[in-house]
């Protein structure tokens, strides 16, 4: 590679690296990544209230926890395990793009809101779901009803036990008991407003769900807990089986179409031009 190619490549790498290193402000980061599970003075959601969090654990521990919660949990840390148990065993999520510096800025932001008396407590009234909500929720989940802001349907990545046939997607977790796990209607509604997992943040920050869609989905998930369908273990095996059967048919058809390939090329062509 000559030197002009090298220089161009180096310039390209510097340009891209600089572009990728841009970081949001702590407040933005909190709104996108933390708010689905926490409040600051507004009471417990899926995770604990963060008001005065630094009086409960020291800053170094908190930074390590925010930066890599799975590692702290795996180390057997007693306080991390206590939080895990209190959160219905929903693990704290590692936020996309998190660093020690951003974690420190987040703690500064939480301290600032704490000193201002915290966020207003959310008065929550559990919505009453109708059968129409459940039906619409199922349609949103399966994709037969399109989300207003073009978010992909849940079934692309998730399944619930009641889906027949080959089931739903397996990129994300099974959502059959998500209504319970994420703190019923209050926790789930906040979670659905800004899903905080690393896979969902980049998608749903640009394609958020609207209020009606969230209510329909909550109704559907609540119903899933109530009907308690059995897991569809055969769906993966059936998928593989259909694939293998289809491949056998594919090869058989090919064999049949070109069965005479060694003897039927030249002769019919010569015959055809006579």
């Amino acid at each position: 590679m000559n030197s002009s190619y090298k220089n161009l490549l180096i310039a390209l790498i510097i340009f891209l690296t600089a572009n990728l290193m841009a970081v949001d402000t702590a407040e933005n980061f909190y709104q996108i990544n933390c708010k689905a599970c926490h409040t600051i003075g507004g009471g417990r959601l899926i995770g604990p209230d963060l008001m005065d969090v630094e009086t409960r654990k020291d800053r170094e521990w908190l930074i390590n926890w925010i930066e890599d919660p799975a590692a702290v949990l795996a180390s057997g840390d007693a306080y991390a395990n206590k939080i895990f148990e209190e959160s219905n065993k929903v693990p704290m999520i590692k936020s996309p793009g998190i660093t020690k510096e951003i974690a420190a800025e987040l703690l500064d932001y939480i301290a600032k809101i704490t000193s201002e008396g915290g966020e207003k407590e959310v008065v929550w009234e559990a919505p009453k779901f109708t059968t129409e909500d459940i039906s619409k929720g199922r349609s949103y989940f399966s994709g037969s009803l399109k989300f207003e802001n073009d978010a992909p349907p849940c079934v692309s990545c998730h399944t619930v036990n009641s889906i027949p046939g080959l089931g739903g997607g397996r990129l994300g977790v099974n959502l059959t008991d998500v209504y319970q796990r994420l703190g019923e209607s209050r926790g789930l509604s906040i979670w659905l407003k800004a899903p905080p997992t690393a896979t969902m943040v980049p998608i749903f920050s640009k394609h958020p769900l609207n209020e009606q869609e969230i209510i329909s989905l909550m109704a559907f998930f609540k119903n899933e807990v109530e009907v308690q369908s059995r897991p569809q273990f055969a769906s993966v095996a059936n998928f593989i089986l259909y694939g293998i059967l289809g491949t056998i048919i594919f090869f058989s058809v090919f064999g049949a179409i070109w069965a005479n390939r060694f003897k039927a090329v030249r002769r019919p062509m010569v015959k055809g031009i006579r």
Partner: protein
Amino acid sequence: MDNFDLLLYGIYPYIAMFVFLIFTINRYMGKGYSYSSLSSQFLENRIHFWALVPFHFGIIFIFVGHLTAFLIPSTILAWNSDLTRLYILEVSAFIGGLATLVGMFFIFVRRIFNAKANMVTSTMDWVILTLILLQVIAGLGTAVFHSWGSSWFAAVATPYLLSIFSFSPNIDFITPLPWIVKLHIFGAWSIILLFPFSRLVHVLVMPNPYLWRKPQLVRWYWNRKKRFIQ
């Protein structure tokens, strides 16, 4: 941000595309006649059929599927809005992948055990064949363990690829994905990187008119029997 992911999915794609562009043009300008699939059908014709035909039908079907999901993702999502249609698409794509895999198995068998085919197989052929084999296995693994790719491709891979092609790479879509999906994406960029140095260049000079032109009959110009008598 994980620096390793940044390297593999934010920077490596540009290196791959840069190399692809420069060396593909360079090879065409300098050694245009080397743009060939270097067919060895002459040397061995029986296993060749079960290797190359399913391989090409399978891989072209899968490639067109990936391209469609990238270019018109909303169409794929509209098709997938009915679960039965989603299943038909996914099972069809899986069959395409399995046909490619079986074809690759026969390609390897033929090039390892047939002395003539083995003789004309270069190191780069082995490298690119192994890379494609890994790519197919990772794709099939993704289809089985992390379905339904035809739907989540539109939400994950399409915006990632758009960010790459618009020179503002966003690897947030890729970083949290399972390792086998990431391997599949890395494999795709690697194939693009090695493309200009391999026989894959024949894709760019595909003789499309073969599909619709009239068959040509090749015949001897002289009387061979007469020649032998003389």
